[in-house]
């Protein structure tokens, strides 16, 4: 598999503080990657750089082999979708109208929506299980449903990559699992590259192909769940004594001593 994102020598300084330091990392196409780390470790910053929401202080990112600064705004949005940590209020938009906005990168300000667009919009709504809510205002939905509506918008955007910034931090356990399961399925069905910032290391190990951990702006661990779910590595990531049990193949439980 080719590298979808290729991060080389990336550093980000904000107000004299180094948030990311000299980072080298590649993200393969079709892989679900979790970014782990404690608060302030730079994982959200990395995601923002990948989404071009934040310009790096130095270093470079290549998207599909091309330096990603040279891509046009809409062309970039056709390849990479980004869900911010706190999606804003939607000011009365219905679910379907929100999802339809995902076609903007493809149709621009004036292009007509054709059959294909409407099919993709409906498909995205179906895939996220929001059929019965399609004409409800997004503001009136519950937290989990709202999150799914935004994910549906990203799906309608028809990108090859999703960048999700803590998509489950405001949800209860049931909705956390459902959202991650949804992301996992979608990634498989549509061969998406997904990079997701997560706090829950167990859920990350359960649903992601690869775990990448940051600490103080530097890479501290990178590997498959099996490699990362190890007492020593978890301790080095979070800085607290931890233990790990493997309950069943592919299902780990971590705990704090």
């Amino acid at each position, binding site marked *: 598999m080719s590298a979808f994102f290729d991060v080389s020598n990336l550093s980000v300084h904000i107000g004299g503080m180094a948030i990311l330091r000299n980072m080298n990392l590649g993200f393969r196409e079709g892989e679900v990657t979790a970014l782990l780390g404690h608060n302030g470790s730079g994982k959200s910053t990395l995601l923002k750089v990948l989404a071009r*929401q934040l310009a790096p202080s130095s270093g470079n990112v290549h998207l599909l082999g091309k330096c990603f600064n040279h891509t046009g705004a809409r*062309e970039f949005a056709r390849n990479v979708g*980004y869900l911010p940590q706190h*999606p*804003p209020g939607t000011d009365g938009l219905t679910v379907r109208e929100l999802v339809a906005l995902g076609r*903007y990168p493809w149709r621009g300000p*004036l292009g007509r929506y054709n059959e294909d667009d409407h099919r993709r919009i409906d498909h995205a709504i179906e895939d996220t299980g929001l059929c019965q809510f399609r004409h409800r205002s997004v*503001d009136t939905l519950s937290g989990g449903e709202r999150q799914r509506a935004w994910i549906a918008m990203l799906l309608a*955007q028809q990108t090859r990559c999703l960048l999700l910034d803590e998509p489950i931090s405001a949800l209860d356990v049931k909705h956390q699992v459902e959202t991650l399961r949804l992301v996992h399925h979608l990634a498989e069905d549509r061969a998406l590259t997904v990079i997701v910032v997560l706090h829950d290391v167990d859920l990350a190990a359960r649903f992601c192909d690869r775990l990448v951990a940051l600490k103080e702006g530097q890479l501290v661990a990178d590997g498959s769940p099996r490699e990362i779910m190890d007492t020593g590595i978890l301790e080095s990531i979070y800085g607290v004594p931890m233990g790990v049990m493997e309950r069943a193949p592919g299902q780990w439980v971590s705990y704090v001593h």
Partner: protein
Amino acid sequence: MYAESAAIPARQPVLPPGLPITATLLWMGALLASAAPWFGELDPGALLAAFWTFDAGDYSSVLAHYSWAPRVSIAILIGCGLGLAGAVTQQILGNPLASPTTLGVEAGGQFGVTVGTMFFPGLLAFSPDLVAVAGGLMAIGLVIALTWRLGFSPVTVILAGLVVTFFLGAVNMAFLLLKGEWLGNLFIWGAGSLVQNNWHPFMELWPRVLALAVLMLLLMRPLRVLQLGQTSASSLGAKVGMIRLLTLLLVVLMTATVVSRVGVVAFVGLAAPVLARLLGARTLGARLLWSSLLGGGLLLLADTLAHWASTWGDGSLVPTGTTTALIGGPIILVALQGFKNTHHMPGQDASPAGFLPKRRPVMLVGSVAITLLLVTTVISMSWSPGLEGWSWTAFSQWHEAWVWRGPRLLAAILAGVALGLAGTLIQRMTGNAMASPEMLGISGGAAVVMVLIVLSGADIGRAGQLGGATLGAAAALGLLILLARKHHFAGNQLLLGGLALYVFMDAGLRLVMASGGTVASQLLNWMYGSTWLVSENEALGLLALILLISATLLLVVRPLTILPLGETSASALGLPVTKMRLVLLLLAALLTASATVVIGPLSFVGLIAPHLARVLGQQTVGRQLIVAALAGGLLLGIADYLSRIVVYPNQLPAGLLAALVGGVYFLWGLSRHGRA
């Protein structure tokens, strides 16, 4: 994990040196500037002595004792009082931009006194405080009721305060235009004049200010608890609602007491606490202390400037309210740059509940609006009062009536359309239902130029005025763009920049009103939208312009839907956010300028028409634009007709009527807004 925090040295935060230095400089500067003209006549010792005694044989000494000294004292007293009131207001509302001015209290007090003068002169003679306090309470009550359910976010509160100020100002103006002969000297008083001719007002004022200040300081501890936010404060056992109510009452009392004596001294109550905060006053106690001190210094400085301007000018009185507004504007601008993360202001976390009326088909609503517009046109063209009662002009005779009724009606409708479109654009791009061209100061920019033209005495004709107003609007817009570029034209900064522009406009207005005479009434007529000044060519030119802009608007409908999702999401969808905002801003400014020239800067149409479209069930951008344009046209069309007939054979400015009707609608709509 606690080990890390222990590594930070525990040091008591100290008072930043900038604060006392600035305060001292301000006071020294203001006192010296104020005393400067007297140094030639009296030696410093005698000047100082003027505060308590005078030498009956020396005219200068008498003058200093009865004019200069009380003026200085009252400026310092009022400045301190308003500074303290402002700091307390900011604390209780958790809002760094709250103040008696921005909450509408001063306008309310002024309104109370105007009503008192007209209808209850006996009451006014008994106690001027009473009516002023009642007016102030009414204004702040309105603002709070309007914004309570909308999450009470800083910008919303300020905007509601502005709307209330505008509205009360319009009512005041209606009284002035109808009963001008009664209220002539209210002009000067309303602009805030500190001129004194004896010690009586000061002696009357100081015990009241002192008592209110002491009461405010008694509430200091509960106020400190409020800093933690409503939830934590009430979990600490503070009766949050009670404290807020009590303190606001004190603030209103303080402000109204001042307003009823010297008129509106705008922006001292805002500028002083903002300055104190910017200079680093951190704790509540420090903020209250330094706000009072800085307030006293600021007002003394402003008053001295006003005094100098009056002396050096052509002898016409420059009220202190003008100079405080001139000082207040820049301070708001500085504050705007200082409060970087406005998103984390307290009170903004609670997002307002969605306002979602049932959707209705655009064809239905649109055709109803068009029908109403046609009906208005027909009635306005045909049915009018004459010398011998009402008469009906048949369609075949319209070409004769056209020259009298046609252009002004067309211009009014077009101005309404333009404002409806501009308002929708601005509300959408700032994501704030209270934004409008009036609020952004674009209309204000046009008005300032008009004021300058009138003041300079140049007679450049209607076309020149038109050009000048357009230039002014463009300049205001340019300034806004410069200010907001740093923040990528984000909503709140844009609105606050507009607020600062409004302050400047306000200063100009006060100046003209105080100068009185024909100039003032001429300008007032324009300010409040006198459609009878419009010629046929101007109306047709406006028609062409509006049609052109409407065609351009088709290009921006989709980006405008995406922008409210926030900068992040919008750029993630591939929208060039900054460029798009610039284009929208330009379109909105052009629309506003063309409307302002016709209807004046103060109508509420740009605020109401988009709101009305929402209430009528048009939630998506394209539909809202269409219906808002129609609604705006309808509103001003009706206003124009009514302005012709209500006080026939006299005429009222149509913009004033629209502002009155629109203001009532808006206040009513907003209070429903939260409940829905």
